[in-house]
């Protein structure tokens, strides 16, 4: 509308041409992947794989060189949210979906609910289920007999802190949440520019992990109905605790993953980070100057006698309902996530933390480069990962998460303890209302 009409016409024509080219392109590639993989009986089966995991090309290359009959093509995606949007569009359109799809755990119920993921329990070996932690396996079966994906990586949470600053200020590493609050207050009193952490209203997955650690599981299946328990005691306890810290001002209230937060990690004003196993990569990328100064410890605990942690992130590999080669696709994704060569390559190429227990020991022999001084990094991480509780996601995680962003955005800005618990209640209300409006059977 701000453009000159002539330019607009040219732009429209160019766009039309581009669009037509794109359409015909999509059509032809769709044909080659969709239908006739097995037409010429001697031909290899061609599979497409939508993923955004770094280094996946190299891992798939390994498979392609040893499996001439099943050739996999990696199609790089922007990330979890846009890839799911694209997949759901393709499912709705009836064509254009890949054979294999990387899916974050919290997205699986949404995808299953849209009939996007195939049940591969019939194609899968009997020994696969036992190779994964129970909580993670539960996320790909939704607690039933069907199997919708095979877990790839998980994100057990730990506490990362600046060991040098802790030492110079004489602070002890907190092992309980009470101690965490004390250390946060001591640190902020010693240097008012410094914070032990921030409460991020932008990262719903982070708060979910904290709630999971406290024992929450926000969705559940009761008979033929969904249950929603975002406002359970565990989550309210977590929200109230953080509301108190933010209200007193000893914890920062700015979102993570902003230029400001990166600067704070670099210049030592963010002294700690409650994060997950993939944190070394993020710290290396965002705060390269602080190499060698960070250490990892277990999360502060609610009950020191019963150590627990939550998960932040992690994904699985699934076969879509549009794939005509479910058996071959399942063979590939089983190899990808359970074979020692593949898992080791996922770690070395992509830096992720494999969910597969038998191949962890070999794949995780040396600590991540950014934590080279902490030799027992993965031993400790392995112990912590065992303490992750089970958490069930529901079919409208997206609604709950966007409600988290908006409600906790208001609460962190208000810096009020009561606003934090109100935000949890508002999330519960929005999530349950959405399920009911859509027609899901909900038990309250």
């Amino acid at each position, binding site marked *: *509308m*701000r453009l000159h009409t002539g330019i607009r016409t040219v732009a*429209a*024509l160019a766009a*039309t041409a581009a669009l037509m080219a794109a359409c015909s392109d999509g059509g032809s590639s769709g044909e080659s992947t969709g239908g006739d993989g097995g037409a010429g009986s001697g031909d290899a089966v061609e599979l497409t794989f939508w993923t955004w995991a770094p280094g996946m090309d190299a891992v798939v290359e390994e498979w392609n060189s040893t499996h001439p009959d099943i050739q996999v093509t990696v199609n790089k995606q922007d990330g979890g*949210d846009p890839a799911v*949007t694209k997949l*759901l569009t393709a499912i709705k359109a009836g064509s254009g979906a890949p054979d294999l799809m990387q899916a974050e755990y919290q997205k699986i*119920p*949404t995808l*299953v*609910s*849209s*009939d996007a993921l195939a*049940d591969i329990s019939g194609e899968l070996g009997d020994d696969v289920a036992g190779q994964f932690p129970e909580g993670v396996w539960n996320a790909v079966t*939704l607690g039933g007999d*069907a199997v919708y994906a095979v877990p790839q990586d998980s994100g057990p949470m730990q506490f990362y802190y600046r060991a040098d600053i802790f030492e110079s200020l004489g602070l002890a590493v907190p092992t309980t949440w009470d101690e965490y609050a004390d250390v946060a207050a001591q640190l902020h009193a010693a240097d008012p520019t410094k914070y032990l952490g921030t409460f991020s*209203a*932008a990262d719903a997955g982070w708060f979910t992990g904290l709630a999971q650690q406290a024992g929450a599981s926000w969705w559940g*299946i009761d008979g*033929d*109905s*969904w249950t929603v328990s975002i406002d359970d005691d565990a989550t309210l306890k977590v929200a109230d605790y953080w509301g108190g810290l933010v209200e007193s001002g000893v914890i920062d*209230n*700015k*979102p993570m*993953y*902003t*230029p*400001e937060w990166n*600067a*704070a990690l670099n210049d030592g*004003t963010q002294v700690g980070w409650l994060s997950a196993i993939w944190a070394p990569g993020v710290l290396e990328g965002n705060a390269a100057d602080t190499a060698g100064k960070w250490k990892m410890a277990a999360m502060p605990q609610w009950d020191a006698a019963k150590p627990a942690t939550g998960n932040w992130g992690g994904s699985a590999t699934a076969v879509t*309902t549009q794939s005509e080669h479910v058996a071959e696709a399942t063979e590939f994704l089983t190899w990808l996530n359970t074979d020692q060569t593949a898992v080791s390559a996922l770690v070395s190429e992509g830096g992720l933390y494999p969910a597969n227990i038998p191949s962890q020991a070999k794949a995780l022999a040396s600590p991540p480069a950014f934590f080279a001084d902490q030799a027992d990094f993965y031993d400790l991480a392995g112990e912590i990962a065992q303490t992750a509780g089970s958490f069930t996601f529901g*079919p*409208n995680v*997206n*609604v709950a998460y*966007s409600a988290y*962003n*908006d409600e*906790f*955005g*208001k609460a*962190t*800005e208000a810096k009020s303890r009561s606003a934090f618990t109100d935000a949890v209640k508002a999330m519960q209300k929005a999530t349950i209302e*959405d399920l009911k*409006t*859509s*027609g*899901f*059977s909900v038990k309250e």
Partner: protein
Amino acid sequence: MTSTEAAQRPSIPPDATVRPGWRGGRRRTLAPYAFLAPAVTLFALFLALPIGYAAYLSLRTVKVSGLGLGKGARTEVWAGLSNYERALSDPEFIASVLRVGLYGLLLVPTMLGMALLFALLLDSRRTRARGFSRVSIFLPYAVPAVISSLLWGFLYLPAVSPFAWIAERLGGDFPQLLSSDLVIFAVANIALWGGVGFNMVVLYTALKAIPTELYEAARIDGCNEIAIAWRIKIPIVAPSLIMTSVFSMIATLQVFAEPTTLKPLTNTISSTWTPLMKVYRDAFTRDDLYSAAATSVVIAVATFALSFGFLRLVQNHAFNQEK
């Protein structure tokens, strides 16, 4: 054409009217359609059809049964006007409309005021380095909104802003520009920065078209530069001012890129901060195309109503002078 003219038609001998153009008659009646065809096809395919589809979607919804897992759990059904009902009664939508109203009241007068001021300054006789000034005022318009929002976002965040650094060195206090009280100004400022140049060029072009005799006559009558601007230039460019106001109002209602780009930097911009952001959230975060379509239709209708309402309101006042 009046009805009397039409009624008289048959009385004219057919030969007399048809003959002169007869030889190329067939081709002539086809030619305009042939020329129109590409435009009509494009319009139908890429504008009318999608609008129609959006209107259709806005009357549909998905019904889930039971747990909603697996095949056939979801069916699309008619929803009547329930999507519209929900959109119009959603407190977040109403809040976003009010917010954008305030944003428009802040932005449009400031932007057009500055554009007019710059245009008049450039047009005044004493201005030096005219070409350079014009280009440097216009240049921000060439920067895509997403890029400019990122640039400004960095300038707004105290930890990375050079202005905060300077303020600190001078012993001052740098305001939290993305806090809930100031964020609307922060967003409006980005749009202002990008929009002034374009509007200035439109107004400046209109000023250039004014015959210089008018100025000479005014000077003989004793007008100084300010009086000329006030009594001659501004009244004559009024139609351009109105056109730029309408465009700015439409752009305001559709504000999306700036707040969406700033959103990850702050807690104060919600996912429904503007009406279009709500449409985006419904369609792509909540996977609910149906209510997104309904809200889009509401926004489109409101945009039409506002634009035409505004035009009608000012039309007589502005365009009568030209007649």
